[in-house]
């Protein structure tokens, strides 16, 4: 057990997978000599050489497609797209190729492709570099999407993704790279797409993922001091989603609050909400509520940027309102 930063945990996972399986290789912009813009691939080039740690030109669609073609021949590529915003240039490789080939070939070709990309809103990077595009990939059958929120999950989920024969997107959050946490390399990892209860609670269920999981936990601490016990479920995966864990929790608490960093309109929360009301409408004491980002390109101005996405206070308020409506307590 060691304390590692999120990027260090990912780096550790890369080292181990490269060492254990010579069919694993990584490529992307500045991953080799420079060591990766968030240091995730630091030290790999010296150890594994240029065929396995490859700097690419700025050609997202074709180097992601390179990963697709190499995976068809049995290699296990780990493609780093410098930020999720650039993945829009690689949508053809991801959506039309990686997600389709295993199926269109009648199951003949596995697709052991991992695509890592940082995303989310960081600190004043401007509208083009502050996007949460996970929902675009969720609507594509054939892709699997994981969203680690802790160094331990980053370590586990990246390793599991590399070992899978399906194409998996690992969405890393830019503000989590320098968060520290315990990483136990000897512990047995939970299944890749299983949700985890980060904080138990009897009054309401908060369903969330990625960095918002930490925001929700901070809000839960505030709520606890007011006597409201909020259970925080970190989904860890956006495709597939562990509905069973969500339904079990909501059936106990009878209240559901969704906290998401992406835009509210047609966001991830819309899917959570629609499916959960199908599963547990009669268990609910109040309508499912969403706390989401504004439907607005991210402003550069720091204060406005912060006001665009959910903060601890927004979650606390929404939880109070959800409980208050039910219990008839005045706000």
């Amino acid at each position, binding site marked *: 057990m060691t304390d590692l930063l999120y990027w260090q945990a990912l780096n550790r996972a890369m080292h181990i997978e490269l060492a254990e399986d010579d069919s694993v290789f990584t490529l992307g912009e500045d991953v080799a000599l420079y060591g990766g813009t968030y240091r995730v691939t630091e030290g790999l080039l010296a150890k594994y050489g240029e065929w396995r740690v490859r700097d690419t030109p700025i050609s997202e669609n074709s180097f992601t*497609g390179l990963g697709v073609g190499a995976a068809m021949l049995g290699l296990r590529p780990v493609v780093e797209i410098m930020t999720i915003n650039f993945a829009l240039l690689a949508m053809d490789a991801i959506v039309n190729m990686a997600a389709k080939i295993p199926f269109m070939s009648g199951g003949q070709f596995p697709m052991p492709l991992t695509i890592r990309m940082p995303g989310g809103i960081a600190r004043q990077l401007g509208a083009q570099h502050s996007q949460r595009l996970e929902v675009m990939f969720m609507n594509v059958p054939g892709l699997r999407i994981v969203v680690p929120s802790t160094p331990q999950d980053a370590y586990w989920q990246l390793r599991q993704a590399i070992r899978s024969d399906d194409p998996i997107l690992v969405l890393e959050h830019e503000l989590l790279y320098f968060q520290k946490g315990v990483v136990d390399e000897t512990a047995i990892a939970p299944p890749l797409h299983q949700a985890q209860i980060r904080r138990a609670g009897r009054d309401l269920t908060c369903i969330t993922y990625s960095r918002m999981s930490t925001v929700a936990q901070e809000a839960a601490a505030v709520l606890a001091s007011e006597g409201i016990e909020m259970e925080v479920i970190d989904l860890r995966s956006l495709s597939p989603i562990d509905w069973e864990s969500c339904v079990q929790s909501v059936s106990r608490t009878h209240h559901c609050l969704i906290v998401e960093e992406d835009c509210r309109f047609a966001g991830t929360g819309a899917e959570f909400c629609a499916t959960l009301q199908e599963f547990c409408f009669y268990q609910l004491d109040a309508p499912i509520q969403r706390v989401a980002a504004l439907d607005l390109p991210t402003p550069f101005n720091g204060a406005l940027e912060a006001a665009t996405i959910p903060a601890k206070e927004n979650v606390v308020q929404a939880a109070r309102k959800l409980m208050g409506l039910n219990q008839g307590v005045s706000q």
Partner: protein
Amino acid sequence: MDSNLMQAMLRDMLRARAFEEAAAQGYAQGQIAGFLHLYPGEEAVAVGVLHAAEPGDYVVSTYREHVHALVRGISARSIMAELHGKKTGVSSGMGGSMHLFDRERRFLGGYAIVGETFPIALGAGYAVGYRKLPEAVICFFGDGAVNQGTFHETLNMAALWKLPILFVCENNHYQIGTEIHRHSAVVDVYRRACAYGIPAEQEDGMDVLAVYAAAQRALHRVRSGDGPQFLELTTYRYRGHSMSDPGSYRPEAEVKAYEAADPIAAAIHEVSLQYPSQSELAAAGHDCIRQFFDRCCQDGHIDDAALQRLQSEVQSEIDDAVQFAIQSPQPTMEDAQAAFTQNRRFETLV
């Protein structure tokens, strides 16, 4: 030229033509649905290139790929069944005409988004290069694909890392209905490869022997570690872009002129002493036919009777494939789910 090879190439060209005409008929009769892009006119390209390839090589193709698959050794039955969407199809009925895949024969698929064959070939070439294997990757594409970003991105990376890829441009001069002069500032496609330092040549894609020789040379260089090579093969499709395209944008005289240079007719001339006559060739006015005829006068490989036997054998094979396709069962939704979850069958997801 080796007599067996000549006859094998002739047989494949006849198979290719008969297969596509049978597919067109199946489409007209409503047996085949969806998009159907046919190859007649371009047979010399697929046959010449793929006869120069080794079984260990990988092939990446476009949505006009029935003939590449057929010449690569995938059975006419399983290709025809795929066109019919049947369970016995090479892609189990999940791919269709534009998505033929065969892992065993290293056929890495037909791709229906123009320009996708480049990155697939790039990845296959990367894998072969990393493993230092003696294999080559053959990447087919049309003249319309060379204006996609992936063309330039891929040529750059393939050259940068000296990957074992043979790029084969089937230049039929049209991207659907837009003629090459109207879609490309530089109409000699091979010259674009030179910009990336990739050795490139332009060959007559209507002359199967020229194609074969050029592909052999290029593949030899690929296998020698010289990095990617590039062939532009000028050719012509007799039919429209797909079965839903009447091809009315092309002048009749142009279609006729190319039909006169039919590569199948040319190959027959190569091996038949009797046909066509000197005056017929002169009337056709295409140098490659005269060249073929001159050669076939010098050494004959096949006589008229043998040619007729060959044609009838080929027709039986294709008729059988059509019957097989029609009689094959439809895939079920369980088959679709099985194809979808095939690669996660040993995993616990949640």
